[in-house]
């Protein structure tokens, strides 16, 4: 354990190993390319790291669990250590889950690590996505990586749901029942899809085994593949950086992978791991022994899905009664189709957002400097509206608990949330846009007039003035160097026509960039100096 640098001896083991490998793999090229690659540093860049590291925790703890878990629905009688369920009939999946919890030392810990890490995985992906969205880090050349990231987000939720259903306990069985009911509501193919999924009528004897192969093989394989692509593209495109003195769109300022960035990353990896273990050792999660084995008849009040499925479950609850029609001899379950449509209304724009924004701005340049959210007011406001929309759906998944905890009528909770689902995105949009413009105005006035010092000076002729401290060049640069777009002005094309597409684009562009605060210019600053 010394930190004095000792160069590797040319005859030493490390040098020999490195030489051996390089002669067979040409690995020195990789080290040359990546070893001193520069990474910019900012706290918001670690959110994606949390996702990556918690995924590793999920993989490792999940591998441990596979050695003990029996993914079959064969009926068996529980004979383990947990007395309240002794002699109760259940599936082998549930029994082996109980055995992992009560008869394998550290088994409960690994179950809880797996579950907490999974929750953290989806949460960190969500926050990471918000960071990328609000800073505009998805712009060219990173649009494809945004789409890949979106796929990872969907895969993470699918992994979560398939894993949640494996123990075959009362709660997860009810979750599957809800999926079954939703699938049956799909026109034309729903009934068949349900029967193919469950191998017959719900619940059948196949679903746990099928979800198991999805959960531990197919989905992880796709997830790891996309994750590798995601990281590869990040290396190819290099990381974005915040604008600031000395940082341009043509450089990257920061620390090299070896040693500083790598050291911090490895350290952070262990911190995330340790944090997950800390939670898992102190806080119970998914105590399936309290729920009992799956039985189609009982259900407990206050059932909650895992948080990341909450938005979908909540959306189901917000539909008014009787949304079902009988047309052309078939049943149309609007109570299922409308929630799916409203969820797609959120997910599809998220998936293709970089292309939408690019179509509006028409900007084909590469962007490596991120936006401060305030400097892209309309985008930030749209993001806030989308977040609100998701948040209302999510809150609806706990409508019953909100009612019991706050002593309000359940019906009122639902009606308020239905109202909020439609109205709150608009309110969020308007408020956020105003806040962004206000912050930009504040930046502008600080850049022009400096910071109020609070010192009031009386001049010889009796006038009182407040002294403003002018900004340093670095500070001024940080708040005035941003991308500014004007609204699109439609012009006739070669045939003298203005196409409908162009008209629409111009209208959207106006909506986007009509209200804007332009960065200050040197001339304006000069003028302001004369005024002060």
């Amino acid at each position, binding site marked *: 354990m010394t*930190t004095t640098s000792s160069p590797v001896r040319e005859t030493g083991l490390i040098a020999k190993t490195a030489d051996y490998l390089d002669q067979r793999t040409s690995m020195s090229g990789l080290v040359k390319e990546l070893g001193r690659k520069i990474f910019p540093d900012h706290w918001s860049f670690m959110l994606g790291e949390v996702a990556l590291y918690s995924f590793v925790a999920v993989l490792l703890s999940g591998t441990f669990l596979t050695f003990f878990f029996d993914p079959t629905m064969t009926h068996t009688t529980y004979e383990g250590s947990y007395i309240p369920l002794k002699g109760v009939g259940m599936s082998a999946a549930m029994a082996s889950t109980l055995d992992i919890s009560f008869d394998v030392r*550290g088994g409960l810990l690994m179950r809880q690590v797996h579950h907490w890490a999974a929750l953290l995985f989806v949460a960190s992906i969500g926050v990471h996505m918000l960071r990328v969205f609000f800073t505009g880090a998805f712009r060219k050349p990173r649009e494809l990586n945004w789409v890949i990231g979106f796929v990872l987000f969907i895969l993470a939720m699918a992994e979560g749901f398939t894993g949640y259903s494996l123990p075959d306990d009362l709660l997860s069985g009810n979750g599957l029942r809800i999926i079954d009911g939703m699938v049956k509501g799909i026109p034309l193919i729903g009934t068949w899809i349900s029967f193919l999924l469950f191998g017959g009528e*719900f619940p059948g004897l196949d679903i746990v085994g099928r979800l198991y192969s999805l959960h531990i093989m197919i989905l992880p394989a796709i997830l790891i593949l996309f994750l590798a692509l995601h990281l590869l593209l990040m290396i190819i495109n290099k990381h974005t950086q915040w604008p600031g003195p000395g940082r341009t769109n043509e450089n990257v300022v920061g620390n090299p992978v070896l*040693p500083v960035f790598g050291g911090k990353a490895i350290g952070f990896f*262990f911190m995330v791991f340790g944090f997950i273990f*800390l939670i898992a050792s102190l806080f119970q999660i998914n105590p399936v022994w309290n729920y009992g084995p799956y039985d189609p008849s009982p259900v407990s009040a206050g059932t909650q899905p895992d948080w990341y499925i909450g938005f979908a479950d909540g959306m189901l609850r*917000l539909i008014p009664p009787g949304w079902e029609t*009988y047309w052309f001899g078939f*049943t149309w379950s609007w109570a299922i189709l409308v929630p799916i449509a409203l969820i797609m209304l959120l997910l599809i724009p998220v998936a293709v957002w970089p292309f939408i924004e690019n179509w509006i701005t028409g900007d084909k340049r590469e962007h490596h400097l991120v936006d401060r959210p305030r400097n892209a007011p309309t985008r930030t406001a749209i993001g806030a509206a989308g977040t609100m929309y998701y948040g209302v759906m999510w809150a609806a998944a706990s409508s019953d608990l909100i009612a019991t905890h706050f002593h309000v009528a359940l019906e009122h909770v639902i009606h308020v949330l239905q109202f909020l689902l439609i109205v709150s995105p608009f309110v969020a949009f308007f408020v956020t846009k105003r806040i962004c413009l206000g912050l930009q105005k504040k930046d502008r006035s600080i850049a022009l007039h400096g910071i109020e010092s609070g010192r009031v000076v009386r001049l010889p002729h009796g006038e009182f003035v407040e002294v403003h401290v002018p900004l340093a060049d670095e500070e001024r640069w940080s708040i005035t160097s941003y991308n500014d777009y004007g609204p699109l002005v439609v012009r006739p094309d070669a045939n003298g026509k203005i196409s409908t597409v162009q008209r629409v684009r111009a209208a959207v562009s106006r909506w986007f960039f009509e209200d804007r605060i332009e960065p200050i210019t040197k001339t304006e600053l000069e003028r302001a100096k004369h005024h002060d």
Partner: protein
Amino acid sequence: MAEDEHGGELRTATSSERTVSRGTALLPTDGFQNPGLPEHRPRVTDTDPRAAKRVERFIIFLFWLSFAATVFTVAAYFIWPIDREDITSVRANNMFLGLGIALSMMTIGIGAVMWSKYLMKDHEMVESRHKTEGSPATRARAVEVFQQANEESGFGRRTLLRNSLIGAVLALPIPGIVLFRDLYNGNNPAPVDLLHETMWDEGVRLVRDPIGTPIKASDVTIGSVFHVIPDGLIDLEHHMLEEKAKAVVLLMRLPEERLKEEEHRKSWSYNGIVAYSKVCTHVGCPVALYEQQTHHLLCPCHQSQFDVTEHCKVIFGPAGRPLPQLPITVDGEGYLVAQSDFLEPVGPSFWERKHDYNV
């Protein structure tokens, strides 16, 4: 945006901005100059060797602590085993193993980060970016490669040959999809038929869930509620859960004047005792909560509410249809029995569901 020549060694990529469309972006004509990197500020550990030594000692301590925590974890595995006689031993086992591992990882993590932050050289370095696309020569060569391959193979020329290949390859995955048809075995009954039938039939006794004892009409007092399954369900060798998932029923008795029954359904109840499917018509959760005072059934999953006095019509929540009613009567011994199966499919709606049932 700005074109600064920081250090004079960076090749700016802004020249490309002339050739690439910038859309509606407004380029600053009278903007400020990028002031360049701010001066590097040394840390305490750079200027004070004793501070650096202190930090180093602390990190060494953290790494040793990690090792100790690892040893502790292994020891904890044996010190706090799981005792079959005492279920609470699981808690101690879980906690000490977890805390040991958490400490051994946290200390390495914090130590490594501190090493990087306080002891490694932290001068900010600058690296130039290049356009993501390949150099013009590379791109030209790539196009050339494809052209050569095309010429030498005749891929573009022999269109029928090429399109035949594409068509054949596109058809290849179809068997892979067809093979999944037997996820639900083709020899089994048609799904829609199965969804139309349950275990209930004429004369099948209503028995208590889960113990299976029959229910006398005289046992059902006003205001009471019974969770009911068909007689014989719990003795099933196969498909017990599937049958149960369709056949669960709620039995309630209301004051007869409270029941607003349709004319043709008056015979379905018995002395104010009514039986309704317990499977929610929304997505199939069990409608398990009964409010005695209001005679409302509540589904705990998505809060659909059904009014028992009016044939379980939906009065709140996302359900689309009333709960199906099971026609009941009593047999010679006074036990409650079903008059027939349900007269409509129970549970969530599905595409092929008809609306011309005898209800």
